[in-house]
C-alpha cells in the first residue's frame, strides 16, 4: 500500500525525475519486437462478470457454458483458439434471451433502461438508440459504430412494432447483441505505434480490454473506457494511473482468482468425481470448498498481504470451512463459513500442493495417483511438458502389480519397464512424496496396512513428503519462471514465443527484484511495452488448433 501511494504521489507531483530514478534502479525492459493480436472467445467467468457489471447481480445466468480447450496450460490461451460450435451458439442464444427477458422485466427496466419511451406500447427510436448505445458500449467494450447502432435500433423498432411493446423491442435487440461476435469474441484492433517505428500498437480501447480482463477478468468499466476514448491509455502516465487504480481495487481479487483457477485447472472441479463408498466425506460441497480454500489462500497471500509468490508452496496459512475441516480432521467454528487457519509447524500440510484441491484433482476417483500428481507438479507449477503414455505397450508384465500393497510397489513395475520408465521416472518420484494423502487428499500413514514411504526427488534433489516438495518448489527458478510465463500468456492470450525470450528474461529479473510480489508482476506486465505492442504483420499462428476433446486423459498410474 505504501509503495502504491508513493508511486501515486510521485506521479501526481514530482513526476519525472524521481520516477525515472526509481525505474532506472531495476532491470530495464528490452526493446520490443511486437507480439500479435488475438481473438479470444469470452470465458464463462468473463461472461458472468460482464452481465453482472452491466445489469446487476440479480439477473440470473442459468445454463451450461462450454469451456475452451486448454492450450499452453491455460484456458485463457485456449480461448484464443476456440471457436463456437452450433450447440454452443444455441446455448448462448438461450442465455442471451433469458438475460434480455430478465433485464426487461418491469422491476428491473426502470433502473436499467436509461430513458423512458414516449409510449410503452410503441417503438421509440431515440430511446432505443440511447439504451442500446450505452449497453452496447459496455458489452462490445467500445462504442458501437453508427452502422451497428442503426441496425440495433432498427431491430428494436421493428420488434417493438411487431409486438406492440417498446421493451419487447429492446429485449429482441439485446438478445441479439448477446450472440454477436462483437460480444462473444474479444477482438483486438491496432494502429501505428508512434513510439516504435515500424510496429503497431493496440488501440486505446483494445488496451483497455486487455488490461481489464487481465486485472479484473471483466470488461472495462466506465472510467477505463473513458480514459481509452480520451487517448489517455496511449501515454505511460495514463496507463499507470489506470493500472494503479485497478490494482488497488478489490476487483483485482476476481482477476487473481481467475488466473489461478485457470493455472491450477480448477475448471476440472466441475467434473471431479470421487467414489463415495471409498471416500464417504466427499460431496459437491467439499468439491466447491476445496477450490475455494486454495483460492482464498492465494488471494490472502498474494493480494491482501502482497506476499512472495514462492510462499504458495510453503505457507501453512490457509482457510477452513466446516466440510474441509472434516477432510483435514481439524475442528472449525461453524457460525461463519470460512475461518483462517494455520497448520502447525510439524504438520504434513504446507503449501498449496498439500491442499485438498491439488491432491484430489490429481487422483483417480477411488485412489491416489503419484503419476497424475507428479505430472501435475511438472505441468502446472514448473511449466514442463510430460509426454503422453506410449501406445502398444503390453501390460502383461503388470499382472503382479495387483498384489502390490502400496502405490510405490505398484509403480515400481512401470519404472522398471523400459517403455514406461522414461515418463514414470520423471513424474513418480515427485508424486510418491504426496502418498500420505489419499485420493481425496485425506492424511494417512499406511496403505493396505503397510507404512507409506514419502521419500522422493525432483530432478535428483531428494526430499521427504509434501512439505519437502514445497521447499524444493519454493527455491526452484523453474517455478517462478513458470508463473511469469503463465501470467504473460494469460495477459496476451498467447503463449510466449521465440520473440518474447528477452522480455521473459527481463520479467524474471524484475520479479526477483520486486521480491516475487505477484501484484508487482501484474503491474510490470501491464505497464510494459510488450503488453500492447504488436508486430506490423501479425506473427503467423496456426489456425488449426488443438482441443481437449476427451476431457483430461489419464496417464497410467
Amino acid at each position, binding site marked *: 500500500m505504501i509503495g502504491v501511494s508513493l508511486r501515486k504521489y510521485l506521479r501526481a507531483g514530482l513526476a519525472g525525475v524521481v520516477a525515472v530514478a526509481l525505474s532506472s534502479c531495476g532491470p530495464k525492459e528490452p526493446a520490443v519486437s511486437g507480439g500479435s493480436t488475438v*481473438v479470444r472467445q469470452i470465458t464463462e467467468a468473463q461472461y458472468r462478470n460482464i452481465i453482472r457489471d452491466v445489469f446487476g447481480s440479480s439477473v440470473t445466468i442459468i445454463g*451450461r457454458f*462450454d*469451456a475452451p*480447450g486448454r492450450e499452453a496450460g491455460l484456458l485463457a490461451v485456449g480461448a484464443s*483458439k476456440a*471457436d*463456437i*460450435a*452450433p*450447440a*454452443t*451458439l*444455441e446455448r448462448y*442464444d438461450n442465455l442471451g434471451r433469458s438475460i434480455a427477458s430478465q433485464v426487461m422485466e418491469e422491476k428491473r427496466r426502470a433502473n436499467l433502461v436509461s430513458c423512458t419511451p414516449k409510449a410503452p406500447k410503441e417503438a421509440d427510436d431515440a430511446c432505443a438508440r440511447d439504451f442500446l448505445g450505452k449497453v452496447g458500449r459496455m458489452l462490445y467494450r467500445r462504442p458501437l459504430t453508427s452502422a*451497428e447502432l442503426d*441496425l440495433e435500433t*432498427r*431491430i428494436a423498432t*421493428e*420488434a417493438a*412494432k*411487431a*409486438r*406492440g411493446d417498446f421493451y419487447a423491442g429492446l429485449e*429482441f*435487440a439485446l*438478445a*441479439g447483441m448477446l*450472440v*454477436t*461476435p*462483437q460480444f462473444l*469474441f474479444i*477482438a483486438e484492433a491496432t494502429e501505428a505505434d508512434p513510439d516504435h517505428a515500424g510496429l503497431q500498437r493496440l488501440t486505446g480501447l483494445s488496451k483497455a480490454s486487455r488490461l481489464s480482463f487481465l486485472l479484473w477478468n471483466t470488461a472495462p468499466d466506465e472510467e477505463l473506457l473513458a480514459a481509452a476514448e480520451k487517448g489517455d491509455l496511449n501515454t505511460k502516465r495514463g496507463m499507470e494511473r489506470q493500472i494503479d487504480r485497478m490494482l488497488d481495487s478489490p476487483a483485482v481479487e476476481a482477476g487473481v482468482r481467475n488466473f489461478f483457477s485457470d493455472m491450477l485447472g480448477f475448471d476440472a472441479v466441475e*467434473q471431479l*468425481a470421487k*467414489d463415495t463408498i*471409498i471416500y464417504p466425506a466427499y460431496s459437491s460441497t467439499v468439491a466447491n470448498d476445496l477450490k475455494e480454500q486454495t483460492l482464498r489462500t492465494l488471494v490472502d497471500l498474494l493480494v491482501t498481504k502482497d506476499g512472495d509468490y514462492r510462499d504458495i508452496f510453503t505457507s501453512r496459512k490457509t482457510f477452513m470451512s466446516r466440510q474441509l475441516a472434516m477432510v483435514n480432521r481439524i475442528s472449525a467454528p461453524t457460525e461463519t463459513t470460512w475461518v483462517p487457519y494455520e497448520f502447525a509447524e510439524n504438520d504434513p500440510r504446507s503449501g498449496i500442493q498439500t491442499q485438498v484441491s491439488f491432491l484430489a484433482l490429481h487422483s*483417480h476417483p*477411488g*485412489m491416489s495417483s503419484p503419476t497424475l500428481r507428479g505430472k501435475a507438479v511438472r505441468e502446472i507449477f514448473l511449466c514442463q511438458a510430460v509426454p*503422453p*503414455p*506410449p*501406445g*502398444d*505397450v503390453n501390460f*502383461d508384465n*503388470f*499382472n503382479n502389480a495387483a498384489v502390490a500393497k502400496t502405490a510405490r510397489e505398484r509403480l515400481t513395475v512401470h519404472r522398471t519397464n523400459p517403455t514406461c520408465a522414461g515418463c514414470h521416472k520423471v513424474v513418480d518420484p515427485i508424486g510418491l512424496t504426496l502418498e500420505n494423502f489419499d485420493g481425496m487428499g485425506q492424511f494417512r500413514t499406511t496403505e493396505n496396512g503397510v507404512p507409506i514411504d514419502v521419500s522422493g526427488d525432483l530432478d535428483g534433489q531428494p526430499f521427504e513428503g509434501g512439505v519437502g516438495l514445497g521447499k524444493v518448489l519454493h527455491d526452484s527458478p523453474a517455478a517462478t519462471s513458470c508463473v511469469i510465463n503463465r501470467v504473460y500468456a494469460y495477459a496476451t492470450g498467447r503463449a510466449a514465443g521465440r520473440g518474447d525470450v528477452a522480455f521473459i528474461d527481463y520479467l524474471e529479473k524484475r520479479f526477483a527484484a520486486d521480491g516475487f510480489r505477484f501484484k508487482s508482476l501484474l503491474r510490470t506486465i501491464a505497464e510494459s511495452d510488450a503488453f500492447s505492442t504488436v508486430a506490423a504483420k501479425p506473427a503467423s*499462428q496456426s489456425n*488449426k*488448433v*488443438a*482441443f*481437449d*476433446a*476427451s*476431457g483430461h486423459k489419464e496417464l497410467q498410474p
Partner: protein
Amino acid sequence: MTFLIPRKPTRRSVLRGMLGSAAISVSLPFLDCFLNTNGTALAATGAPLPVRFGTWFWGLGQTPGRAISNKMGAGIEFLDECKALIPYRDHINYFSNFNTPLDGKVSQVHFTGWVAARTGEAPGRDRDVRLPTLDVLVGDLIGSGSRFRSLDVSCTGNPKDSYSFRSAGAPNTAEVSPVSFYARVFGPEFVDPNKGDFKADPNVVLRKSVLSAVNEQSKQFVSTLGAEDKARIDQYFTSIRQLEDNLAAQMQKPEANAACHVPGLPVEGQIGTEVGFAQTNHKLMTDLMVLALACNQTKLFNMLYSDSGSSLRLPGTSQNHHNLTHEEPNDPKLGYQVLSAKFATWSMEAFGYFLEAFSKVREGDGTLLDNTFIFANSDTSHAKIHLNDNIPIMTAGKAGGRLKTGLHIDGGGNPLSRVGFTALQIMGVPVEAWGSGALRTSKPITEIMA
C-alpha cells in the same frame, strides 16, 4: 392437405401474415420464410421418410476372441460379449481387420483410434482434431431443415465427451442430463408434428430476423479482422447460419409421423462415471433420442455411452474400467480379464438397448432403425495393449434401404477409413476420396452398398 411452397414470399406479405393486423414494413434482412399468406405453415409434402444418420461410441473396445467369431460374410456370429446384439444381427454389419496406419506418427493412446475412424486422419498430436468428423459432413448434407442440426449426448456426465467436431476449437459438446435433454427437445418450444393447428410462433420469426441481423453485423465485424483471425472463427459463422436455419425449420410444421409422441419428463437420477449411472442415463436418453428423431426434431445424432479410454467405474472400487484393462490380471483359467470383459459386455448391452429402441419405433412399413444409418465404433481393439488396429466398428440400420446389412466384413488389413468413406457415400455426401495420408481412401466397401 398439401400446400405448394411459394418460392419467395415478399417480406411484407410474410410479416403481415405473421403478425396479423400490425402494419409493418420490414427492412430487416428477413430470410425466406416458407409460409403462406395466412401465416400457417406449409405442411407435409408427402416426401419419403427421412434417412437419419448418427453415431454410437463406446470406449476400450472388446476382448479378443470374446466378441465375434472369425466367420465372415452373412450370418454374423456374435459371441458372449456381444450376446445383446444377437437379436439385431441382421441389421448390423461388423467390420474386422481394418487397420489404422499411422504414417510414422506417434500413437496418441485412446485418441488416435477414434479420430482415425471418425475423421479419416491419424492425429499428429494429442487433442488435435484437424478434419471434420463424419457426422458433421453428413450434417452439411441432411442437417438443415430440422429444429436441431444435431443432438449430441454423453452418458459419462462430462459434456466434453463428444467426438463431433467441425474444427478443433469447436466440438459439439454433449448433453449429459436426461432432464436437460428433455427440456431442450420437448420443452415449451416443442411443436408436435401430429397436431393439426400449427401456427408459427411470431417470436421465432422475430428471433430469426434478429439472427439475420446479427449475421449481417458479423460480416462488418469480420471485415475488421485479419485473415487468420477471420479463418479462426469461421465456425461461428457456420453456427449462426445453422441457428437461423433451425429457426426457419421451426416456422414450418415438422413432418407428421405417427410414431411421434411426447414422452414423460424423465426423473433426474445421478450423473457421473459410475457404470450404473451411465447405463441408466443411456437408457433414458436413448428413449428420448428415438422420439426426437420420430418427431423430426433432428436427423442427426451422436450418442456416447462411455468415453474413449472409458472412465466408467464400479462403485466402491479403486480401479476404473480403463485402469482395469491394464492392471487386472488375466484369469488363469479363463485366460482373459474378467472384470474388464464385463465392462465390455455392458457396453454391448447398451448398444443392444439402443438398437432395440430404434427398432421399436414403427415408421411406414418398417422401423426407425430401417431409416437410420448408425455408425458405431470404439477407440481401441484390445485395450490392454492400446491396440489401434482392428478397432471394432459396426454399422446398424438400413439407411432407408441404401445399406445392406447382416454381414461380417473382413478388412484384410485395409485402412479403417474405408468404413467411414462408405458411410459418406451411402449417405450421399459428394466425396470421391476421404481421409489423409495412408488413411486416404477412395474405395468404398461395395458389399454393403445397396
